[in-house]
């Protein structure tokens, strides 16, 4: 009884986690600018990874596997978000400007870096 409940919960969590990762990857492909892509990837990566790993945690057979999955989740949360921040900061510092919508009387051009 508990087993089937855990299985159903794992199914739901794994599927929704995969859904988030998929939408994040689609955003990575289709968004127009670097900063928007960072936004898409950073958010959905963390959410999708968290859901998938929690879904796996419910299937763990002993406590060591459970503890290791908790370590991976915590580390993944911190590392993905911080890497996203570091990349955006490095991109701004090297001169990459975000793409701003056209406004009358406003200079709007994306200036790619020379790298």
């Amino acid at each position, binding site marked *: 009884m508990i087993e089937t409940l855990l299985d159903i919960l794992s199914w739901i969590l*794994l599927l929704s986690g995969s859904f988030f990762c998929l939408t*994040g990857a689609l955003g990575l*492909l289709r968004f127009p600018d670097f900063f928007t892509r960072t936004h898409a990837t950073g958010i959905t990566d963390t959410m999708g990874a968290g859901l*998938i790993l929690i879904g796996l945690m419910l299937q763990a057979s002993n406590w060591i596997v459970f503890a*290791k999955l908790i370590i*991976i989740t915590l580390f993944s949360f911190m590392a993905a978000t911080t890497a996203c921040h570091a990349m955006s900061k*490095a991109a701004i510092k090297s001169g990459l400007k975000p793409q701003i919508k056209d406004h009358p009387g406003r200079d709007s051009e994306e200036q*790619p870096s020379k790298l």
Partner: protein
Amino acid sequence: MYILTTLTLLVVMAFTLIRAFKGPTLYDRILAVNTFGTKTVLLIAVLNFLAGRQDFLDIAIVYALINFISVIGILRFFEYSTKKPLDEDL
């Protein structure tokens, strides 16, 4: 259940690789490689349950660490090397 997740993760990794090849600026490529690494960690964790073994999780932890440290290393490298004037033909 695991098979479906694995297939989705493989599709996501393929999309990321497309972005890594296409991305016009360098930072797009760094972002794509970082995302590829995060998805690899998830893929190893899911494969661990698919194959029924328990020791793949150590590799997942190590790869999460390595991915993070490598991305930070790459970003520091580019911070140092763009201290030169930007009109140098890189």
